[in-house]
């Protein structure tokens, strides 16, 4: 069952559940961060409305910088601003930032260790009809391989808002992964959030599998947990919104109980959350693991739900993976 102490949204499994895109939470978070700290500035590369940077622009026009279609310029200009003492957020689509400007982020932000916040919007398969060029599925791998970089992948708009506000104050280069589509709002203002701290969202007696998820597919994991419970299979679902640094303690503590893992993410299986969890467990607690994610493949045009179905990232796919990993664990 959903863990009541986390004060998650009510009725998340009902039809009229509230749905808001995570990028909206980012935009609202920018305004709060801007109110808290006058050093917060926002840069955007010709995608002001769709990254919801416009909310900040309207409130703080003199602290908003329009870069034009220039993601490399945006990352490096932001690096200079952060070096001076500002806290720049750079907003674009993940396919272009960090997709196009990775080396600039590596050298001038991460190696320089200046607190630029990189917001990669429209990440994942659910960009849908735009097709493979815009369906960024490699960004977590790109960013988590980089020393000094924090990687956060919020599960809903409320968490995205909290991640945005928290990252403004963390003093570190930080990547925030966002999505275009409306998704279920799982958490509330009262739900605890701390960068680097994973939370067990679904608990049950004698759980057999740890489902570790990040981003909006966390909701599919929760549906899967509910379905599995009906068939007598108990699981835990961990919201692992911070992929780097990984909350090793929470993950290991869950896996010690279950002895089996399914990771869930809208990202390439290679190098994403699943990879991060596997690296941790291989060293500390070798455990059978199944991976929900993109199997070394590019996406294509289609409706978001059609794509998630085609590439096996829905709750029923998670159910299959859970059953499979239980067989592996017991064999």
């Amino acid at each position, binding site marked *: 069952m959903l863990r009541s102490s986390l004060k998650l949204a009510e009725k998340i499994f009902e039809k009229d559940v509230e749905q808001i895109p995570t990028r909206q939470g980012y935009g609202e978070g920018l305004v709060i961060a801007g109110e808290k700290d006058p050093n917060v500035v926002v840069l955007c590369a010709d995608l002001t409305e769709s990254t919801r940077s416009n909310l900040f622009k309207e409130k703080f026009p003199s602290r908003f910088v329009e870069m034009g279609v220039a993601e490399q310029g945006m990352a490096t200009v932001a*690096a200079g601003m952060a*070096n001076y003492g500002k806290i720049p957020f750079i907003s674009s689509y993940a396919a272009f930032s960090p997709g196009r400007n990775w*080396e600039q982020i590596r050298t*001038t932000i991460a190696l*320089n260790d200046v607190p630029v916040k990189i917001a990669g919007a429209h990440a994942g398969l659910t960009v849908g009809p735009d097709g493979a060029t815009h369906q960024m599925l490699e960004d977590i791998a790109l960013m988590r391989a980089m020393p000094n970089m924090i990687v956060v992948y919020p599960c809903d708009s409320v968490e995205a808002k909290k991640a945005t506000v928290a990252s403004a104050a963390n003093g570190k280069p930080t990547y925030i992964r966002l999505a275009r589509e409306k998704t279920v709002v799982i958490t509330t203002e009262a739900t605890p959030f701390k960068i680097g701290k994973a939370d067990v969202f679904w608990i049950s007696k004698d759980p057999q599998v740890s489902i570790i998820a990040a981003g909006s597919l966390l909701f599919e994991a929760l549906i899967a947990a509910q379905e599995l419970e009906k068939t007598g299979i108990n699981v835990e679902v961990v919201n692992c919104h911070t992929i780097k640094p990984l909350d090793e303690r929470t993950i290991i503590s869950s896996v010690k109980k279950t002895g089996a893992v399914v990771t869930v993410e809208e990202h390439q299986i290679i190098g994403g959350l699943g990879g991060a969890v596997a690296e941790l467990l291989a060293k500390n607690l070798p455990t059978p693991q199944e991976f929900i994610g993109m199997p070394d493949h590019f996406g294509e045009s289609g409706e978001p739900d059609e794509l998630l179905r085609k590439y096996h990232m829905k709750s029923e796919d998670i159910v299959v993976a859970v059953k499979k990993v239980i067989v592996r664990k017991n064999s």
Partner: protein
Amino acid sequence: MKLDIKELELKANTIREDIIKMLVEAGSGHAAGPLGMADIFTALYFHILNHDPHNPMWEERDRLMLSNGHICPVRYAAMAEAGYFPVSELMTLRKLGSRLQGHPERLRLPGVETTSGPLGSGLAQAAGYAYAAKMDGQKFRVYCITSDGEHQEGNHWEAVMFAAKYNLSNLTMIVDRNNIQIDGYTEDIMPLEPMVEKYKAFNWSVIEIDGHNMQEIIDATGKAKAIFENPTVIIAHTIPGKGVDFMEGDYKWHGNPPGTNIPGEPPKEEQAKIALHELRTLGGKIRSEHE
């Protein structure tokens, strides 16, 4: 402490000698660019910049951003001669544990202002810095040294547009126009001319100088301070390898230190000796305390 023209020329020569010794000790690194930029770095550190070698993070200091990080030996030598750290530390260049990394890193050596090496990203950082400083009404200037070869990078031109859009008059860029890059001469590899017209078309103020003439270097940076309409680029024509006859103007010395086997050049064992001898006697090219 501002040195006069004569003193600056002598100091530049000392810095060239430092560069040769550092590179020989390191066994790798770039020779031509640092030698070619010795006059400009000397003018900056000993006359132009408002800075305090004993307080490298002094808030009101002028910021000097080096975009083409591979010529850092000249910056390290100028900083050491200016008193940022002991001259003897120059011999640690590129060695394990050294603050003098092969390409400069902000977090390792106070005063280098930023981390650079990958080309085309320095002007944007300087422009971002200048933009932020302008937001806060800061009085200091931001200087950015770029190479000519890195003008082949798209990132650089994104920054050129950005700096012009926001009229960053507190930013002065100095381009080391030495016409060489690793693979050959810039105009053969990927032509950059007409450079002056390009910058004018991008709404920058442009000043061209002889990058080995101390008076011209000082006058041009002074003039740039008085231009309030837009950022200024000083295109400094320099001779790569300046001061060492067998290196001058030859792209083969772009990425190599003295002590490298290059057909048609002096034997590698002799190169450092010849270079230092030339810098001390100079063949009349640069005056020296040893002349």
